[in-house]
């Protein structure tokens, strides 16, 4: 019996891409509404605020959530040599995630039931099911790790365990506490989740993918297991302490603000460490490896570095007081979610896809996807960053408020256009997964770096047959 529930990998992978298109449609429509505000003709279902809620919730749950699940169904058995808890549970989880959380969440938001809380816009009833789904995810994916024994876990395993457990802890901070604790006090908790959604859910799972795909696709061990683990623990130490940097110069006590700003700076240092380790692991694969999943995660790593350094800088008071509230931050969040996390997720899905023997795979489409997405993200982020600086400058002056809206318009036009590149990129990505010959992914892997079957790799990762100290970096791979 095969280890990996390939059908669940396939289902979540495909659901991820489908939901991605819906989420992007919300985003693009909202961006066009800033250019043509009367486009929706006053229809409440299409008003900007509601589309904006659905855009980010769709990206977080619909796209990244499904992508992570697809990856977990592939990676957990490989990392542990064990099957996930239950295929039946997997089907329930798939239904719950997509048809009880994301789709109804979207509709409820459009119908006017939502929370005005960032990364927590789905209404409370949906939040309850998210908690249930997070618990089921823990039940589905964590037992294999504990059954295997966690004394010599590879770093991806740590990120998966950490990500799943800490998300359960952090989720209520932004989704439930502000409903019970008013105003400024609630905002302090809300700030925690704004950062933890990215820091304890998206980042750990995206890093798990990157740490997994690099050695698996290049068949070379990770540069340093020690650095990996150091980076992991520093990340889990520092990320939660960043929350208050979303409310700098607010009434929240200054010492909490300064603490969060300091943690933000240190986080940049940690990310340099993590990224250095990853880039050193990528040595020898070339700038643009032939294996597209590897190329995606490599570029995602670079985005991770840039977005984290940017985050450290913009948390600092001198920068924050100017660019906070502006399009600069929108650029930052797109670099994080569309650059770093999406590139990792796309790499993760494609990597798992290549190893589904009956799945189609189209290399040329993937190459197109890579270049379209890369250029789209870079253009969008640069464009929004400049827009933010222009807005910030006008806000510091005594120009009328509307001047900043007028000044942003050309950049908003640019943003909407850059999103067309991104849509084209994802269409190519979808074609990459659904056209081409069946099993072509395996062939691509073999051509570039040589590819083992999943069962082989699982054996290699679990039962060390090459007992050298270096091998523990990625047990079984000799360097």
């Amino acid at each position, binding site marked *: 019996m095969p280890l990996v529930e390939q059908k669940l990998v396939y289902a979540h992978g495909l659901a991820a891409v489908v939901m991605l298109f819906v989420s992007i449609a919300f985003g693009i429509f909202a961006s066009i509404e800033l250019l043509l505000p009367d486009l929706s003709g006053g229809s409440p279902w299409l008003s900007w605020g509601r589309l904006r809620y659905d855009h980010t919730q769709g990206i977080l749950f619909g796209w990244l959530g499904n992508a992570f699940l697809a990856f977990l169904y592939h990676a957990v058995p490989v990392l542990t040599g064990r099957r996930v808890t239950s295929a039946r549970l997997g089907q329930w989880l798939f239904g719950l995630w997509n048809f009880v959380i994301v789709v109804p969440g979207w509709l409820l938001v459009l119908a006017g039931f939502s929370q005005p809380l960032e990364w927590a816009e789905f209404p409370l009833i949906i939040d309850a099911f998210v908690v249930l789904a997070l618990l089921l995810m823990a039940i589905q994916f964590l037992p294999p790790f504990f059954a295997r024994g966690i004394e010599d876990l590879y770093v991806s395993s740590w990120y998966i365990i950490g990500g799943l457990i800490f998300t359960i802890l952090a989720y209520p901070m932004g989704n439930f506490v502000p409903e019970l604790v008013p105003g400024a006090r609630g905002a302090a908790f809300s700030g925690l989740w704004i950062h933890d959604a990215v820091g304890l859910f998206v980042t750990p799972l995206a890093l798990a993918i990157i740490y997994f795909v690099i050695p698996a696709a290049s068949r070379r061990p990770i540069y340093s297991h020690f650095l990996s683990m150091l980076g992991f623990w520093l990340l889990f130490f520092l990320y939660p302490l960043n929350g208050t940097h979303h409310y700098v110069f607010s009434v*929240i006590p200054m010492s909490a603000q300064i603490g969060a700003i300091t943690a933000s700076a240190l986080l940049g240092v940690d990310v340099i460490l993590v990224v250095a380790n990853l880039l050193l692991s990528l040595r020898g694969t070339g700038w643009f490896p032939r294996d597209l999943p590897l190329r995606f995660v490599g570029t995602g790593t670079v985005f991770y570095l840039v977005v984290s350094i940017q985050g450290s800088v913009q948390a600092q008071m001198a920068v924050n007081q100017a660019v906070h509230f502006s399009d600069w931050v929108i650029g930052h969040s797109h670099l994080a979610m569309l650059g770093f996390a999406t590139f990792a997720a796309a790499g993760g899905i494609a990597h798992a896809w290549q190893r589904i023997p009956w799945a189609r795979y189209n290399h040329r489409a993937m190459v197109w996807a890579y270049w379209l997405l890369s250029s789209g993200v870079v253009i969008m982020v640069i464009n929004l960053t400049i827009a933010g600086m222009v807005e910030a400058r006008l806000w510091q002056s005594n120009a009328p408020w509307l001047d900043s809206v007028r000044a942003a318009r050309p950049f908003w036009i640019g943003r909407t256009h850059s999103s067309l590149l991104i849509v084209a990129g994802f269409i190519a990505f979808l074609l990459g997964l659904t056209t081409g010959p069946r099993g072509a992914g395996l062939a691509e892997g073999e051509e570039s770096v040589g590819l083992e079957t999943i069962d082989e790799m699982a054996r290699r990762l679990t039962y060390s047959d090459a007992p050298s100290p270096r091998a523990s970096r990625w047990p079984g791979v000799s360097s």
Partner: protein
Amino acid sequence: MAGGVIMNDAVKRVPRALRMAYIVASVCGVGFFAMSVLLLGVWPGQVLEEQTRKMSPEHPLNLTVSESRGREIYSYEGCAYCHTQQVRYLESDMARFGAPTLAWETRFDYPHLWGTRRIGPDLARESGSHPEDWHFVHLFAPRSVVADSVMPSYSAMFEGSPDRPKQTARDLVAYLETLGRSRELAGPEGEAHARANCNCDKDEMGQMAFHTSELNTNPRKTRRNGAVPVLVAGDGKRGLELYARYCASCHGTKGLGDGPGAAGLHPAPANLAEHKYGLERLSFALTNGIDGTAMPAWRDLNFGDLSALVAAVRSFSVVQQELPADPKTLEAGARVYKANCAQCHGETGAGDGIAVNELRVVPANLQGVRPSLNATLHVLHNGIEGTEMAPWASDGTPNGTGRLSEAEVSAVAVYVRGLYQEGR
């Protein structure tokens, strides 16, 4: 080890205690998280609660049922994603929006609506910034009162026109009117109380909360009094451009008071063709707005632009200099005026009668504006909707109250038109 883990030698050589380090690390990990919640959530929460307890007025107004529903609407429409509700402790924020937000001002916010993006302006001090009719027109068709705004239209909250708001629109506007209200109501005593209890004598940032000259510095906020630079008639061509952008949506492209935004406004926007405005009067209206009406202040435009607008506005007027009126008519008009109009419009017509403070809308300063004869008669016959100016005529109109005869109306019309002084 059947089914178990075969560890490599490197791991086996490590003492068992160290091999269990992951447990220590995991406990620490959860500890880190708990620490973040304590340091950045619970502890600041306690400080803020303490501040609220000490600095809040004893009985701040909570939201009414309608206002709470408005808050719900504000929440699910995502208003907070373009409009922050938090003035930061920064000079640039304070200059634009007013006093920084104190913890106690947010004590009824479940959940908070601070926001992290400002596409539109901050609304923490919106209370008193705009009259209700402006809000309705703005929600119904934002660009008809704010040129180049990118706000969505919320026309679904109306029965087809801004004059006919549904309950949702009423609730939402009621809620907007509460933003910053508690602190306004607390007044100077409230500020003194908060300041005395803020325990922030040495805390530079804490002090900033009390440093603004006024709580609400919204440049659009109307003022009944306020320093006014005397503008000159500037560059007319530039003025017409600015007029087209800022004024035409209400006053109409030709100044006839018939722009798309005009329909829902009470009083209606002035017909600039039918009035001749003095420089002082225009300077006042542009700088301070017309309190109680939808005419906002334009203090955020610079002197050159405002002067250009003065030239543009005056260029629309078709009111002619007229021949001196018959002294007998003037005398009769003066008697009528003294008996009926002076309480509000003032003895000399300067709009400073003894009743002024009781009125929602400040009466016209007749020294600063000469309406056309038609416009004058129209007002005397019909009053001005949305103001305390009542219809005075006896007949010929459905609103006729019969308070003045036709002869008296004609006489007082001539009289008030003569009060205008060039330069005022």
